[in-house]
């Protein structure tokens, strides 16, 4: 179904001014998802097959104008879209996975898999962390990159998130997490499973300090991430159509022989079942997260009866040197 290019441009254009001057830089590689790509000029939506100028598609933050399909974003794209320009300061960018299990799979060793993902995404690991502002509101942010081994949570993912939480505790910065994950980092075995406990225990400290955590669930989000930090938040937002769950649909069908209902595990399914606070279109996320952070950021630090801090947070010495 071919649209007249001008019409597309026109409608997209209208949409354009609805957005603040931000838009994804054209340089950002448009291949976070393995969509069919007609050419560098055109983008073909994998869901409704609508054709859109790549430039327009980027202006609309990779959301299809016709069917609203929210294409996956890399961590860099997501940070660029969410944060005010030039305010993002990355921390712990150099941390890299160890290889505690000396994992090899069909002749390919884990360190090589890591190097492949690093080349592919430009990140050293699946989670990118740092701080900046959204609509002027200071926040700390952790963004998972599905391109990096399916954003699987391993030791580095966990430690970087926990160090970011240390920063939040030290500077009373609201925490924003933008999660997606294919599940555990099998290559790190039980080290990976334990990151669920580690990250959630860190959030417990954040909560006791009355610092807000806003979690955004993006497509796809399964396994350990969904069953730990990503759903223990003061507010949980989900992008329209995002697939979010604990066990994958295939496993459920095999185990239960049950026919899964339409829309199973979509963001809308979760909303209906009371599991997310809001399903928020991508272009409204900036404003909404900024508002929520501002509203929840006012709570004073808890003070004990004699005004001594209710509990002392032991922060690791190394907070100082971040880079």
């Amino acid at each position, binding site marked *: 179904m071919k649209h007249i290019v001008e019409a597309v441009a026109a409608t997209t254009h209208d949409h354009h001014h609805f957005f603040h001057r931000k838009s994804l830089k054209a340089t950002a590689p448009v291949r976070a998802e393995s969509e069919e790509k007609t050419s560098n000029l055109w983008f073909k939506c994998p869901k409704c097959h609508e054709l859109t100028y790549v430039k327009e598609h980027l202006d609309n933050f990779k959301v299809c104008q016709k069917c609203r399909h929210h294409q996956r974003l890399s961590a860099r794209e997501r940070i660029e879209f969410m944060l005010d320009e030039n305010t993002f300061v990355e921390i712990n960018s150099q941390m890299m996975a*160890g290889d505690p299990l000396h*994992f090899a799979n069909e002749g390919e060793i884990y360190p090589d898999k890591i190097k492949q993902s690093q080349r592919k995404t430009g990140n050293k690991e699946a989670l990118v962390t740092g701080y900046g502002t959204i609509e002027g509101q200071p926040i700390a942010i952790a963004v998972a990159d599905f391109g990096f081994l399916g954003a699987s949570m391993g030791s580095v993912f966990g430690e970087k998130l926990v160090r970011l939480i240390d920063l939040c505790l030290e500077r009373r910065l609201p925490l924003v997490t933008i999660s997606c994950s294919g599940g555990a980092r099998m290559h790190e075995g039980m080290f990976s499973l334990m990151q669920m406990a580690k990250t959630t225990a860190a959030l417990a400290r954040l*909560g006791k300090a009355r610092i807000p955590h806003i979690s955004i669930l993006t497509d796809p989000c399964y396994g350990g991430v969904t069953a730990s930090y990503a759903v223990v938040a003061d507010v949980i937002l989900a992008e329209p159509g995002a697939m979010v769950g604990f066990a994958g649909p295939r496993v459920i069908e095999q185990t239960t022989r049950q026919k899964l209902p339409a829309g199973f595990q979509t963001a809308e399914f979760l909303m209906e079942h009371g599991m997310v606070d809001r399903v928020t279109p991508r272009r409204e996320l900036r404003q909404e997260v900024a508002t929520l952070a501002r509203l929840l950021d006012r709570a004073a630090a808890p003070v004990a009866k004699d005004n001594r801090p209710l509990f002392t947070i032991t922060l690791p010495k190394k907070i100082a040197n971040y880079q």
Partner: protein
Amino acid sequence: MERLEELKKALPHRKHKHDTAPDEHLPPVEQSSETHEVWAKVQLARHPQRPHALDYIKRLSPDFVELHGDRRFADDGAMIGGIGEFEGRSVVLLGQQKGRDTKENIARNFGMPSPEGYRKALRLMEQADKFRLPVLTFIDTPGAYPGLESEERSVANAIAENLMALAQLKAPVIAVVIGEGGSGGALAIGLADRMLMLENSIYSVASPEASASILWHDAAKAPDAAASMRITAQHLHSFGIIDEVIPEPEGGAHTDMLATIDAVKAVILRNLEEIEAQIGDGSEDALEMLLASRYEKYRKIGQWVE
């Protein structure tokens, strides 16, 4: 197999360092004998006559009063919870419960809890926190039940909220893997001050079968997956992920249930008394320090390079 076992045990327990490259390499995986040995443990961990959670609970706490329901939706037979006396103090006891026969297995969903099972545990964790009662948990599950309704009522939310509650629970928490430690569904009652495992129990990020199908698209390769994923008590102890391996009678726990249970009871008591000594009068300050050390225990788990 025993010889290798002895050799393994003789390996010095390495306090893993999290912020430098692993300094010495674990012996490479000799495919056959290691695989064979690990798979034998997996089969023992899943042995139908292996003592189950209730066997331990009733022996450690003869006057155990089982408490049912999550006060939200339903009661889940796959999760046992309640209060009882353990060596002179009141404790909350939790455990995943498998069935002895098909009928009981169906009633208890083969020890695979649903969201309401975890929320029953949550409710009892909150009661333990309120009354400052130590919590003893007995882990034995293939994993959380992967069903349609588990997603509708979000087992993910239930697991995460349990982890939050355990992280803030102002009383000693001791967890013991007595059989199968099935991924997040096991961890949901396994964030503890002391993490213990029976010698022939396993604890894994995914079951051997699931790992094999993920890694090699062939569940039949479960034995290979079990070996390479390092899911035995000995491996996890060497990684510092668990604190103590509890020996079983020769041939496995099922050969002498009572001896096994009493061995577990003694190790639990020792660990509990150690923590209680640290807490002393149970003042708020002392309990804050307990939570801080529990946090540090998990903060240290992970290997990376900077």
